[in-house]
């Protein structure tokens, strides 16, 4: 309780029905449970902090996503800057993954999913009916929560993207792409002697780095990462985080994570989502040291989520 800033205490007092009554320490928790910060009314479309940047890669305005009657994303506006690493954090079910998957239209295969609003990549509408989703995904690659290599050889996994897009004309070019991608993903030394081995025989951390290599093999501009380390141990996680730091020089990276330490370590900016709302966006340092919204504060101090 003593970590709480004065502002949130004041607001909590204003909302509370009985919490203002001083109670002995032992029962204080119960009162807090009644007085959940989740109950805070969030004004739709109102985001605290600095959601907009000067030269955005993605310009997202009034985005609304619904699955049938459920609104998963409620009127979110956000800019994602060029070559920045932005982390999406928030409790489970807050819509951060859904929002991430809108950025390369991975939600297309879900029939009941409807996306409204304006989503632009380099000032071109992502959801334009004439827009080719294949071309979009070649520019906006994705790494998933669970490592999902194809049940093929390591080489074929990395070469798959360049092959289907016709990026290499000769075998030697393809070899170069595979080597470069594996090098960038920090996997070359481990994999160079067994490029023909099945990718599914690698360890979880190696598989995830292979998936990253596969994503960067098609030279995307943006890489979306949906909790890339949630299935990995701390050592493998550290490797992937290092990798993100290296890649941030040449790629725009959007990472969804449940680990706030990870968000703090790897990202330039952090966006906090809550129940479909984008509550706060700011420089990562600012978000973690002096959050402006009470919900963000409650979340990063571990009061829920």
């Amino acid at each position: 309780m003593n970590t709480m800033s004065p502002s949130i205490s004041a607001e909590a007092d204003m909302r509370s029905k009985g919490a203002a009554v001083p109670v002995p320490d032992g029962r204080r928790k119960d009162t807090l449970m009644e007085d959940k910060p989740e109950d805070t009314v969030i004004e739709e479309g109102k985001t605290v902090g600095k959601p907009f940047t000067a030269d955005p890669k993605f310009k997202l305005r009034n985005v609304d996503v619904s699955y049938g009657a459920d609104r998963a994303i409620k009127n979110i506006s956000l800019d994602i800057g060029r070559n920045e690493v932005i982390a999406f954090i928030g409790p489970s079910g807050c819509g951060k993954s859904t929002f991430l998957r809108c950025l390369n239209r991975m939600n297309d295969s879900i029939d009941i999913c409807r996306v409204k609003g304006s989503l632009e990549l380099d000032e071109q509408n992502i959801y334009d009916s004439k827009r080719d989703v294949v071309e979009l995904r070649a520019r906006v690659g994705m790494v998933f929560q669970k490592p999902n290599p194809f049940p093929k050889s390591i080489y074929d996994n990395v070469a798959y993207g360049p092959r289907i897009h016709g990026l290499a004309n000769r075998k030697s070019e393809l070899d170069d792409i595979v080597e470069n991608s594996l090098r960038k993903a920090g996997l070359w030394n481990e994999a160079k002697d067994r490029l023909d081995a099945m990718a599914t025989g690698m360890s979880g951390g190696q598989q995830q780095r292979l998936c990253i290599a596969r994503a960067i093999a098609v030279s995307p501009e943006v890489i979306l990462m949906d909790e890339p380390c949630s299935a990995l141990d701390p050592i493998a996680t550290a490797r992937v985080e290092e990798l993100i730091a290296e890649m941030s020089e040449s790629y725009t990276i959007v990472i969804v994570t449940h680990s706030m330490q990870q968000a703090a370590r790897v990202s330039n900016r952090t966006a906090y989502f809550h129940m479909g709302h984008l509550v706060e966006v700011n420089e990562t340092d600012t978000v973690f040291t002096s959050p402006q919204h009470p919900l963000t504060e409650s979340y990063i101090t571990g009061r829920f989520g």
Partner: protein
Amino acid sequence: MTDQRSQAEIVRKSLKRRYRTERRFRLYGILAIFIALASLFILFADIISKGHTGFVKTTITLDVTLDSGMMYLDDPTDLDQWSSADFKAPIIAALQAQVPQAASAAEKRELGRFLGTFADSEIRDLLTKNPELLNTTQTIEFPTHDRVSVYVKHADNPQYSIKLSEQQQLWVDELLQKGIIDTSFNDVLFSRGDSREPANAGVLGAIVGSLLTMLVTLAISFPVGIAAAVYLEEFAPQNKLTDFIEVNINNLAAVPSIIFGLLGLAVFINLFGMPRSVPVVGGLVLALMTLPTIIISSRAAIKSVPPSIREAAEGVGASKMQVVLHHVVPLAMPGMLTGSIIGMAQALGETAPLLLIGMVAFIVDVPDGLFSSATVLPVQIYLWASSSEQGFVELASAAIMVLLTFMIIMNALAIWLRKRLERRW
């Protein structure tokens, strides 16, 4: 404390009951497996005990003097003499030489009844091919008549009635001792088509007919079934029409096979004017019957491909078609193949629809193409099993064993393919 102890007591008591239930449940399972295995064992034992003699043939080997005077045949190349020639006479003479006590004309006739119906045509064929053999002595093996065969193989089996006179039995015993009448592996079974005479009947015609029919069935049902499954699973919009199609495919799988036979008769034969009794029509009918099985199992196989693989492919920018062709179909292939082979095995054993399109006809020749008259193994079994001659009973069982062997091979192939192609993810 007492509270906790009594709770532990309750748990311990319930544990006992739970373990009892589990043991009982396991026992039921073992019992079920035992019943299934026992029935299978009884079935196999019955078929093998009845059918193993079908793989044995009884023959008479004789030194036949192809005397032109005895046969009333001066010139084997002169076709006019064929009709009046007596090819049986030299065989009977040779037989009589072995059984000298049968001297009278009546006794010679009795001896002649040892020979299969086609013994004389064997001599005729030999002379047609080699006219120079006239007036020489040749050692020739003849199939015995069904009656002799039954006596030799089943003399002490009460289920068979011996149709030889006591005198004939004595002669046969004598010839057996001399080694003139002998039993050997029944190569006729695998080298000939059907015949009126059990000694000359084989399953080769039926096997070839079955293979040709299966070829047509496979060529149609596999690509069509898989294309339908892929389309329904991957591309079809989710609406009332696809629901309707789905329900009807499931219904089709439950339609009795004879209905497909009627359909084949009405559509392929009567409407399209295709010939009767041919493997093409049989294959088409069986393909229709197998399609729902293949579609349903292929759809299940496609459904079981993990979505993460699709996402991975979509994530690097694969188009829908590439996702399906590069990832979904290869990963679903083991399941699709297993379903298809099981469907084919079912089709291989199917009789009813083929009866209706005329594949039940008595066909002696081994079919030489998709449009020549043919029969198939299960129909051949049906024909032989309903035949009155005793020799066909064991042949039917032998043919069942051949059919079962094919089925076991196909199922083993399905298991092997699944093991071989199965991939973990």
